[in-house]
């Protein structure tokens, strides 16, 4: 895809208001700890999980709570904090790396980093009742237009090491690199380093888990974004809660694709307002084009998004007789189009995408499509069918504990029948969790 972020930091985004959106933290039942008008410090608890109170979401800045917004049936939409520019910090425990594993884990959660850890099964925010057998950190992102962590983490190696060491006190840490990972990021101690070669989805922790240490029934595995590990390391090393991260702003409709330094929860509009090409309807994505959330400029940046992607929506495009045309500029992973031929001649050719689904939804027709893009020892189509049928036994037997919706993103991308695979998987995992926990 065109619009890869250039290796430069275009600046720091200072959003006036930071919003915490509970929906970004999949699987928690949010309970608000503050009221409108409260003044908070960086590190004050804004929200916690009703079922697992140790899962806390902290305010990244000091300031005043401006809104606790609720929607239909009093569903909590977001809590927003207006920064006052002072850098006062609430009392937070130190994460010591010498204690028992329960103590280290507790400290990680108390400092607010627990909410950034994802747990499998079910792909939800982790908690302390389900201690993991292993923790996975992937040092590279293979998604389209994904940020390059060699660039983002330059100079953060010591922090990353501190974060990894802390995690390694909780459980065995698998740290995955790609052939392109820089030597500085490769040399990490206290972890098992594995190299994964190949295109997307090689960078997904789900694939790495399946190959290194698959999740079985009754077991739990955690995963954490590599930059979040470094941010946690920053806190361990300096004692200061500085949650700024670098994200990529990318996509064909971004004038000057580059990295920005930003706090999660900033308004997406603040991140890319003046940097968009507004010649048609835009699709703004809170994350990458495969797994990100659809967003508007008013929405808050998800803490789980490593990038903001902006592409054309495409609803104003009319393509005539598409089923018969050569469509040389379009990308297809099938050989029904010229993509493969073009790539044989021109390796670095990029293809522009818009958000059209390019077809109509059908029943499963073609077979073997999902297998091509699902490099795990799981039968993806059969699992999805079990999920549609809500057949718990079958889901369990076919490996539902091991997967997250993001693992199925490429299946959804290539699907001739345009089936909404990720939605099916998400709903099925929620159902499974409700029935089994």
């Amino acid at each position, binding site marked *: 895809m065109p619009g890869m972020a250039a290796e430069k930091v275009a600046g720091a985004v200072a959003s006036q208001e930071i919003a915490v959106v509970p929906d970004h933290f999949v699987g928690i039942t949010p309970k608000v700890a503050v009221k409108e008008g409260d003044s908070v410090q960086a590190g004050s608890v804004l929200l916690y999980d009703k079922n697992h109170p140790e899962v806390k979401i902290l305010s990244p800045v000091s300031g005043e709570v401006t809104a606790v917004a609720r929607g239909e049936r009093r569903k909590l939409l977001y809590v927003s904090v207006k920064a006052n520019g002072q850098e006062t910090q609430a009392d937070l425990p130190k994460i010591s790396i010498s204690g028992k594993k329960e103590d280290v884990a507790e400290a990680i959660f108390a400092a607010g980093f627990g909410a950034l850890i994802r747990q499998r099964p079910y792909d939800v925010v982790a908690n302390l009742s389900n201690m993991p057998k292993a923790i996975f950190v992937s040092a590279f992102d293979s998604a389209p237009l994904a940020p390059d962590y060699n660039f983002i983490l330059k100079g953060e190696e010591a922090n990353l090491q501190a974060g990894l060491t802390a995690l390694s006190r909780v459980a065995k840490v698998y740290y995955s690199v790609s052939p392109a990972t820089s030597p500085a990021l490769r040399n990490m101690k206290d972890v098992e380093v594995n190299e994964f070669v190949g295109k997307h989805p090689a960078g997904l922790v789900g694939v790495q888990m399946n190959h290194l240490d698959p999740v079985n029934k009754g077991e739990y595995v955690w995963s954490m974004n590599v930059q979040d590990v470094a941010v946690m390391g920053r806190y361990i090393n300096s004692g200061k809660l500085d949650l700024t991260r670098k994200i990529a702003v990318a996509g064909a409709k971004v004038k000057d694709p580059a990295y920005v330094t930003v706090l999660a929860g900033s308004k997406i509009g603040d991140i890319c307002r003046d940097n968009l090409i507004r010649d048609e309807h835009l699709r703004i994505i809170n994350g990458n084009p495969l797994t990100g959330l659809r967003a508007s400029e008013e929405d808050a940046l998800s803490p789980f998004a490593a990038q903001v992607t902006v*592409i054309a929506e495409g609803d104003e495009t009319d393509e005539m007789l598409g089923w018969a045309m050569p469509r040389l500029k379009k990308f297809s992973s*099938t050989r029904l189009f010229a993509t493969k031929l073009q790539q044989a001649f021109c390796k670095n050719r990029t293809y522009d995408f818009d958000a059209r689904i*390019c077809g109509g939804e059908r029943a*499963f027709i073609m077979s073997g499509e999902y297998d091509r893009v699902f490099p795990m020892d799981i039968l993806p189509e059969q699992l999805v069918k079990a999920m549609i049928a809500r057949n718990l036994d079958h889901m369990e037997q076919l490996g539902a504990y091991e997967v997250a919706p993001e693992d199925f993103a490429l299946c959804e991308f290539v699907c001739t029948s345009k089936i909404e695979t990720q939605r099916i998987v998400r709903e099925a995992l929620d159902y499974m969790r409700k029935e089994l926990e």
Partner: protein
Amino acid sequence: MRFLKNIVDKLEPTFSEGGKLAKLHSVYDGFKTFLFVPNTTSKSGVHIHDVTDSKRTMITVVLALVPAMLFGMWNVGYQHFLAIGQEAGFWMQFWFGFLAVLPTLIVSYVVGLGIEFTVAQIKGHEIQEGFLVTGFIIPLIVPVDTPLWMVAIATAFAVIFAKEVFGGTGYNVFNVALITRAFLFFAYPTAMSGDQVWVRTRDAFWWAGGKAVDGFSGATPLGQLSTAPEGTVYTDGFLHNIMGQPISFCDAFLGFIPGSVGETSTLAILIGAAILLITGVASWKIMLSVFAGGAITALIFNLWGPDTAAAQMPWYMHLVLGGFAFGAVFMATDPVTSPRTECAKWIYGLLIGAMAIIIRVLNPGFPEGMMLAILLMNIFGCLFDYMVVQSNIKKRMKRVPQK
């Protein structure tokens, strides 16, 4: 293009809910998406999609069927003029065949698509493209002289009872075109077998009619095999064409023999196979394993088989005669009715090939075994899938640490 788009947009309210012609919404939608790529954008999950869709896939299969269709039309004309003893040029032969086959094609499409449109409207679905392929295959797998009303009834039966009652394209257990063929075969056996139906001797649209000359015999090679008395020794000149001249492997491969319209030329079918494999629409595993299964089984009969002409016919002749190649390339590879796991596809293909030859050789009631072999394996396909899935489950269960 703007002009067309304007028309389509203007018609939209008429066909939408509350409009005058809301009852025809599926039809309108079918034509709209035929003209323009739908510009609906993704609502959940991935924001970008591969441009491929089921229209593109189905049209590719139809394209792959075109060589067999064109050759079949020509061959109908060629056999016709040969039978009535008239000289005719290439274009005259093709034109005759075209006129003879066209009505069947039209009837098959009109009946099938009519049902498809109606059901889509009743269920409020989009029109599904599956029948574009089925409707093109039906005229290719019936004898040219099949009465049109039979084609209509059989198509209607197959589309309703083999597809729509199961839920439409993607849910059917049996290959719809084969059900059409099987319905004709069992309901009207006299019109579907014997030696009178494979070559048209009468006219097409009151043109170029004639009478079969003396010495004409319209039996297909497989028909000749099955009616040969027990103990007949198979020799090189055993099979003969409609004028009594011997058929060589080359004749059979190229397709200068009587048979169902599209099945005679293995060459034309292989061109279609190449299109399907290059575009990746059909599974090469199934195609290869059907041929392998057939070849191995026929070879076994060659070596140790009973004392009949069918068993003694060299294995390579089995692969180029009758519907074997057509079935292997276009019918066995139907993704909906074949197994969905890769390993199961091998077993499925091998057994289809083997069953087809076994039926041909051992069951004198059925000169051709391909149709029954594929239909039988359609049933067993899910069983093979089940075994593959079970082995995956067993592997996973073994992994659970023993406590």
